[in-house]
């Protein structure tokens, strides 16, 4: 039995601590701390100190950030839009210097950034062609070099990178097709890995060291079968991406949102008939059968993962069905001694 189910009062207390942070501090007073986590939220960059468990606004800007970002050392690679010109940007935030520099700008409907790769999808949808997809690489001097571009009727849903392979999931404008595309940076080539009739929901991707789990994220109370694939990208060999379709997993719950991989397990958010969020822990055998499946009830969904360690996962929590504008910073502690015990441990109130 998990600690949560044994301690409902404690769990309720933790829920009580869920506090929104959509009013960042007016002034940037926080110093850069190498051990802190930094992540974009609306027009601010937030700072979370995992050891002290404190959350601050590190920087307020005139940009409106997208939630996903990439970090290398003291650099954050951010995507944002600006109200001034209606343009989108990829920005470099030097946390130490507290400076933001524009890397590229343009009119995009979607941006995927996973350092050193950038995928942009044009804002305009051209008849008979679709969007213009462009893949670029950031070089050491921060020079952006376009590797390849193509027109495609492709709505980007999710992305992951594994070595020099970028995997994209998406669907078409007419909602007829779901597909997973692989981009080999080495070959500078696109290849369609999976192309299947569209199902309700969107395909999310979660990477492990050797594979990428692709699954349908939906909240339409389907619950018959959580369709999922395990893909094995082979670096530099774009034509060889073996994959297997997994046996039905966690029947009775719909996978719901992007998960992560920690401690040898995929952790996938799921939703039940009452719109409650659960985390499903999956360990998948080499042949594709699920070795272990566990579930814990979670106080909120997993929106953007910021940090994964042996013992914990820190993420922005969000459940659209609870509240459209309430986001939380959440730490999921994983007890490494007994993997059957998990606890949602710290939820931190923003310091005003």
């Amino acid at each position: 039995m998990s600690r949560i189910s044994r301690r409902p009062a404690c769990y309720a207390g933790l829920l009580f601590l869920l506090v929104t942070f959509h009013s960042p501090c007016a002034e940037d007073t926080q110093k850069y701390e190498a051990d802190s986590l930094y992540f974009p939220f609306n027009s601010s960059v937030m700072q979370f100190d995992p050891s002290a468990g404190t959350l601050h606004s590190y920087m307020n800007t005139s940009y409106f950030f997208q939630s996903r970002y990439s970090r290398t050392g003291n650099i954050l690679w951010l995507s944002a839009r600006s109200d001034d010109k209606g343009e989108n940007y990829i920005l470099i935030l030097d946390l130490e210097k507290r400076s933001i520099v524009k890397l590229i700008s343009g009119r995009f409907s979607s941006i995927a950034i996973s350092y050193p790769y950038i995928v942009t999808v044009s804002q305009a949808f051209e008849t008979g062609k679709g969007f213009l997809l462009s893949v670029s690489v950031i070089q050491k001097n921060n020079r952006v070099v376009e590797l390849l571009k193509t027109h495609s009727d492709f709505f980007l849903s999710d992305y992951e990178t594994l070595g020099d392979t970028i995997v994209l999931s998406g669907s078409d404008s007419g909602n007829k097709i779901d597909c997973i595309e692989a981009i080999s940076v080495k070959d500078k080539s696109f290849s369609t890995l999976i192309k299947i009739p569209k199902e309700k929901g969107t395909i999310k991707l979660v990477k492990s060291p050797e594979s990428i789990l692709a699954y349908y994220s939906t909240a339409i109370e389907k619950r018959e079968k959580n369709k999922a694939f395990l893909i094995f990208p082979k670096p530099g060999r774009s034509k060889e991406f073996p994959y297997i379709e997994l046996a039905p997993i966690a029947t009775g719950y719909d996978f719901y949102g992007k998960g992560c991989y920690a401690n040898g397990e995929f952790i996938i958010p799921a939703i039940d008939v009452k719109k409650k969020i659960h985390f499903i822990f999956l360990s998948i055998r080499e042949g594709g059968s699920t070795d272990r499946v566990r579930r814990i009830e979670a106080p909120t969904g997993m929106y953007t993962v910021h940090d994964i360690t042996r013992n914990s996962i820190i993420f922005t929590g969000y459940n659209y069905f609870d509240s459209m504008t309430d986001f939380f910073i959440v730490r999921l502690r994983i007890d490494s001694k007994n993997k059957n015990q998990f606890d949602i441990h710290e939820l931190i109130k923003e310091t005003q």
Partner: protein
Amino acid sequence: MKKNILILLLFYFLFTAGCSIMDQNTSEADIDAQLNADMAKAMDIYAKATTTSDAGLSEEFRKYLADFDGKYGSSLLKDFEAHGLANSRIGGVSDYPPLANLPIDTDGNVYLSGGVKDAVSSIITWVAPNVTRAQYVHGALLDLDKFDPTDLDKPCFQTAVAEGASYETPMQWMTKPNVAVMKPVSGLNQSSLNAAEATMDQYCRGAISTSYGFFKDMVNISSVVTKSDNSLGIEIDSNSPIIDWTTSGLYSIVKAYYASIYFWSPSTAKKKLNQYIDSTRSTLVLAEEIYYSPNMRLTYEAIRY
């Protein structure tokens, strides 16, 4: 004799003045085509203003009006600047927090936005007839199949931008100043809706060939952009008398143009102006007409300035 010469001279000056604007032998179709060409420039700037907030557009629009005035002897720039001053109280940049309760739940719902908050607001409010308090100018259709409640940065609102067809994200709509959500009064036929969504680029054939219009070719909501094309199977516009075109900049431009071309016949100028506005009224769908359509029901509205 002297008097006759003076009259002849007067006619000569009037004639040459007229020729300087438009050749005497220019056909009526050419005259209308010239107006459309002049109007297209205005509408191009207008369309950009509805989807971006580039302050440079204001200067571009001023230049357009100055050129127009120089060509046709009108005083539109002065009117526009006076309007801008009157309108300046709604100016100023502000960041609205995401709307807490914007419904994103019904396939085919129409979303309207307005209430621009920046330097180019004067263009939008001057050009278009503005009747609603929220000054709706931009529209989109929710394609619920594309909505991902776990990723508010994923595009699912079918719309259009100056460059053509496009999509916008829930977060973009949640942070717009003013938003209305309109639900068709009668249930939409799903196959019609799917067909409309699949042909979303029907009126947006690239940036080059788009023609002007408040909605036509610029803002595409489910391909319902003209009164004759309603692939949703419902009349989406109201053609409502509430929409007073005479207060719009578009009306002023057309009026000034025909007054200049048909300077010798105010009645012809008036007739051409009325024809133009009647044609516009009967072919283009305004965001505000959708707002007043008897076939659409307002289910949500947020006005934040």
